[in-house]
């Protein structure tokens, strides 16, 4: 990206109030803005700065801050620059605006995020089940959903103790770290409490 373009972009984006711009490198721009200003930013980038491609919307569950972080990845084919617009929305009640009217592909990303995180997008054309059609539990990608606990309650364990492992154990070898010992130390949910 040319220096002139980055300056242009800087000037253009200053129209949005409270925007924080960080250039990771000349072709990678991070923009942190308030959730209310995001549709204005996207309309600006799409209408006046050639960012026609919304390549993804990703969601992060910051359970300690009680917030969801939404990241809108925008790509410009003309300048080959990727802008990621970061917003935070409160986890409860978990409702945000759809950007379907600005970027049509957003419908799929929003439907996916609604399924995985339970974040509802107002104005999105379809918020019904997408991939997890057989799933009736809580949204599985939320941090407060304990997948392993659910598995332990739903499925039964099949013991696997083959002959070669028994031979190894007789010679003093065997499994160094069991799944249980790994779980106890490495699970962030348990460390907190």
């Amino acid at each position, binding site marked *: 990206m040319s220096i002139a373009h980055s300056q242009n972009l800087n000037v253009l984006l200053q129209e949005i109030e409270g925007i924080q711009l960080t250039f990771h490198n000349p072709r990678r721009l991070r923009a942190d803005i308030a959730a209310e200003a995001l549709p204005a930013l996207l309309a600006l980038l799409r209408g006046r700065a050639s960012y026609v491609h919304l390549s993804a919307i990703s969601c992060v569950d910051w359970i300690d801050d009680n917030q969801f972080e939404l990241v809108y990845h925008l790509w410009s084919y003309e300048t080959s620059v990727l802008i990621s617009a970061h917003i935070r929305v409160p986890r409860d009640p978990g409702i945000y605006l759809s950007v379907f009217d600005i970027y049509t592909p957003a419908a799929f990303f929003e439907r996916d995020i609604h399924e995985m995180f339970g974040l509802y997008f107002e104005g999105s054309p379809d918020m019904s089940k997408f991939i*997890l*059609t*057989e*799933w*009736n*539990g809580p949204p*599985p990608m939320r941090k407060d*959903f304990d*997948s*392993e606990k*659910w*598995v332990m*309650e*739903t*499925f*039964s*364990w*099949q013991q*696997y103790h*083959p002959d070669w492992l028994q031979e190894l154990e007789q010679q003093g070898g065997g499994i160094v770290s069991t*799944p249980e010992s790994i779980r106890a130390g490495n699970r962030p949910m348990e460390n907190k409490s």
Partner: protein
Amino acid sequence: MKKSDLDKVKIKQIPAQKRTNPFANVFDEFVGFCRSRSMFMLHYCTGCGAIELPPAMTSRFDMERLGIQPMVSPRQADILLITGYVSIKTLKRVILTYEQMAAPKYVIGICSCTVNGGMYWQSYATAKKLDEYFPVDLYIAGCMPRPEAVIEGLQQLMQKIKANEANSWKQYYKNYDYFLGNQQHLFGNNWQTPTDVIGEAETYQLAGPNTLGEHTKILQSVQTPLKPLEMKL
């Protein structure tokens, strides 16, 4: 039904019984030999284990010299080969496929994931033990098993068929209540397949004391009869 109740049900393996008539024995052995030498395999490639099948099938290891060929449709297939993890959504389709296959049918689970979920044990979306939902003849463990192991497993299956011991498909009819219970545990009580397994079991005289039970009662209460497809030109 809780998981703990389902665990108590154990499936008895019935040993192969030879018939008393010596001519019938010869006939049975001949049939077993013929079956074991000409098998069509439907490979349900769900996971990474599928990548080991092309070398096993093609010239390097050449499955066809054992008389095993890939088949495209379940109704003509003898072996259902499930390669890798089975998600709950896939499992529904696998069960539909399995029930469509004509008996005698054999199921092989390849990779650790079909044994107990493998590295997907903590996953909310993956079904763990395949033989809880339908009978499995043979597991080939490994992550992933090499083509030699696949060939070895298929040869073991051939030996079992030759000795008339690969009768796991009869278990599905004899213990339908158990398998259906596990299926309902995952899919909910509204679960039903287009195949009338109970009717098949009665027709082929394979119904046993465990064919019907509390789970089949639930099935019969929610089951809607199948209607013929509308023909239109």
